[in-house]
């Protein structure tokens, strides 16, 4: 349940450390974003000497939420933090490595590159 003003961790090595959500891409007036939704975010904290700088507006896809993700077989998945992966306009990740576990639902949403880079797919 990510909404504007939410701080998110970054789960890749693109250079950003923390993002703040500004807007949810999709239907207008959409309240919350869940795993697999694309958001517009501003970089609040960045690693020095990387292409991404602080207060840059970028797009990201949410990969982990503290809010539970329900599956059809009755399974429920809940992470300990909120995290996103920085992507470009097409949907390809800007970084080269992904950290942390990724949910399997991203594969259906055509984020196959992220899923293939993930160390663990839940």
């Amino acid at each position, binding site marked *: 349940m990510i909404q504007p003003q939410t701080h998110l*961790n970054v789960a890749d090595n693109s250079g950003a450390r923390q993002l703040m959500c500004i807007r949810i891409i999709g239907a207008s007036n959409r309240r919350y974003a869940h795993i697999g939704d694309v958001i517009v975010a501003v970089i609040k904290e960045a690693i020095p000497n990387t292409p991404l700088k602080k207060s840059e507006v970028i797009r990201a896809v949410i990969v*982990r939420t503290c809010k*539970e993700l329900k599956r059809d*077989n*009755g*399974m*429920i*998945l*809940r*992470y*300990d*933090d909120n*995290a996103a992966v920085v992507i470009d306009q097409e949907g390809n990740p800007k970084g080269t490595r992904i*950290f*942390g*576990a990724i949910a*399997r639902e991203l594969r259906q949403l055509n984020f196959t590159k992220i899923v293939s880079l993930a*160390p*663990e797919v*839940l």
Partner: protein
Amino acid sequence: MQSLRGSIRLVRRQCSNNVDLKSNGSHFATATAKFHGSSIGFSNARFLGSLSKFTRIGSQAAMATPSNNGIPSVSVSSRSSRPGLLHLAAVLPPFTSRCITTVENTVESASQDSSASIPDVTPRIKFKRLDKTAKHIMQILDKEAVEEVRENREIPDIKPGYIVQLKVEVPENKRRVSVLKGIVIARRNAGLNTTFRLRRLVAGVGVESLFPLYSPNIKEIKVLDKKKVRRAKLYYLRDKMNALKKQ
């Protein structure tokens, strides 16, 4: 006369009390004898006490036969009492005898009922009255479904605090993926929908998963360790075992 009437009423009341008391309790034989002796003796004592001015036959004669009905003793005593009260004495035993028989009848009937109901093994599904069965038909169906699953698979007892290892089948890949290992932090009992929460650390991130206990996707559950916990829901571990929390 009033005292005699009072004694008759007392006998009636005592007999009715005895009838009420006999409906429960297990020692019928001994209790009835005691009650009989006490009530009849008491009534006889009162009856005789009212006549004590006239006769000197003490209550010893009545008390001496506590187990029997007091008819012979009363008649014996009444023979020596004043003839004017003989008919009343004759009246009194029929009351007591009636009381005795009714008490005994209820005693016998009650014992018969209890003995009949005990050896009747109650089946799991009672079809005594269909409308009563319909009240908990969902419960019966639930239990049947749980039994069916339990027969096919061996599901160990899972309680909060256990460290378990699951083998979960993923329907998309059709492989025996995910040997999940974690600590059970909660268990929710709801018949077939009994679920349990598993907490584990995956690639540096804490992940909690909720599984239905009787899900066909869970191929195997193995209990590795049991931790002593004093709680049914271990949600405090979210703060304690959090790798990503800022210190």
